[in-house]
């Protein structure tokens, strides 16, 4: 029942928006919002944002001021009725599109999308998203720590390009060299513990203090140093 009514609401709203008819679109939007309120209330959170209403209000007002012929007397002085109508139409369209997109993404993301990804051999993506999420805090620490280490080594402001060079090079080297499959078939580099210490760099024979400006001839290999 709820599914059928939801789809009737979606189709009628889409039809009214395509016809660009106020008379049909306004009740269509009210019906759609009522359906969301009754059966899919979390979707409505998408439009409970002050910033969205502020921007929409400004767009409606600016349309009244800048589009069409402005009125010359009373409350409408400086504002155009046709401009305001165009602005309200834009706001309605925005609310309709935001809620429709939110509803469709929440229903599609559950089953069909995951199945589609799996069919195309992208099931590894979900697994590695999990790994990346777990490794993010360690990577953030690594980012700050790498920058600090190179910044301390070159304190003068004119050395800033060299600091950026070396820190960026070190990060890229660590991200690449560390990205090796472990026994478990997952990723060593983004295993939080491995990233946070220097074992990874030693394991792949790369000195974590190696700099790009030193070039390869002067690069020390951790295994040899």
């Amino acid at each position, binding site marked *: 029942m709820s599914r059928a009514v939801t789809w009737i609401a979606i189709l009628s709203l889409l039809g009214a928006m395509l016809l660009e008819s106020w008379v049909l679109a306004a009740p269509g939007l009210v019906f759609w919002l009522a359906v969301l309120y009754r059966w899919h209330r979390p979707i409505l959170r998408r439009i409970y944002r002050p*910033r969205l209403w502020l921007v929409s209000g400004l*767009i409606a007002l*600016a*349309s009244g001021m*800048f*589009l069409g012929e402005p009125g010359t007397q009373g409350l409408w002085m400086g504002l155009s009725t046709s401009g305001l109508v*165009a*602005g309200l*139409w*834009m*706001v309605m*369209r*925005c609310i309709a*599109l*935001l809620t429709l997109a939110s509803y469709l993404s929440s229903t599609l993301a559950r089953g069909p999308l995951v199945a589609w990804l799996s069919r195309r051999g*992208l099931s*590894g*993506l979900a*697994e*590695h*998203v999990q*790994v*990346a*999420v777990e*490794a*993010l805090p360690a*990577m*953030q620490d*690594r*980012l*700050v720590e790498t920058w600090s280490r190179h910044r301390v080594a070159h304190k003068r402001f004119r050395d800033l390009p060299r600091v950026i060079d070396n820190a*960026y*090079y070190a*990060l*890229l*080297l660590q*991200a*690449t*060299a*560390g*990205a*090796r*499959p472990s026994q478990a*078939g997952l*990723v*060593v*580099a*983004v295993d939080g513990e491995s990233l946070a210490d220097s074992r990874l760099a030693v394991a*792949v*024979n*790369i000195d974590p203090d*190696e700099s*790009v400006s030193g070039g*390869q001839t002067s*690069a020390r*290999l951790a*295994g040899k140093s």
Partner: protein
Amino acid sequence: MVERAASPPRALAAGASSRYWSLVASFGTLWGAFEVTLGSFLHALRIPLVGVLLASIGASLLVAQRQICPRFGISLATAVIAALLKGFSPAGAIVGPMVAILMSGLLAELVLTIRPHTWFTAWLSGLLAVAWSIFQPLLTHTILYGVQVLSLYQQILIRLSRSLGISTTAGLTSIGLFVGVCCLVGGLASSYGWWMGQRVKERLAVVAPQEDGS
């Protein structure tokens, strides 16, 4: 009955696939860390043009990664992971940046698939990523509020030019110049990523044989 070992090509393919996903996760996390740490910090300070800076860093990382592993789909998959990590940003209001990250990945993927190792495609992917970050609000507004919003912005620009005492053409030229400079910054950043990626690739080529020998 003799047990058959896994055929070498199949084992190699499995290893390559694992390496691929490892690089995706590793670079995705690095990009996500930049976005969450640097991005949130600069957004909190209300520094202008943070989007341009972050788009440049993202493009630079994607280009560097493509020099190391020039495989189809790697830039887009990395962007997906970085965008999802951006969801953990403490700054809030994340849908816009997430879309920007995904689009940077998609644009880099389209450009770098053609010629992953040339400087020009690297430069172009940075330029496109920054151009997208500048025009994204305009495109989002056009999708959400309709084409009419463009005439509204045009009218605002005309009125603004008049009140500043300059012609509309001059106003448009200054906007064009500003966008051009920003895109140039993006191109430079991704060229830098290209150069760095080449250095890392060369460096790892030196390390790998020593590891094999040990």
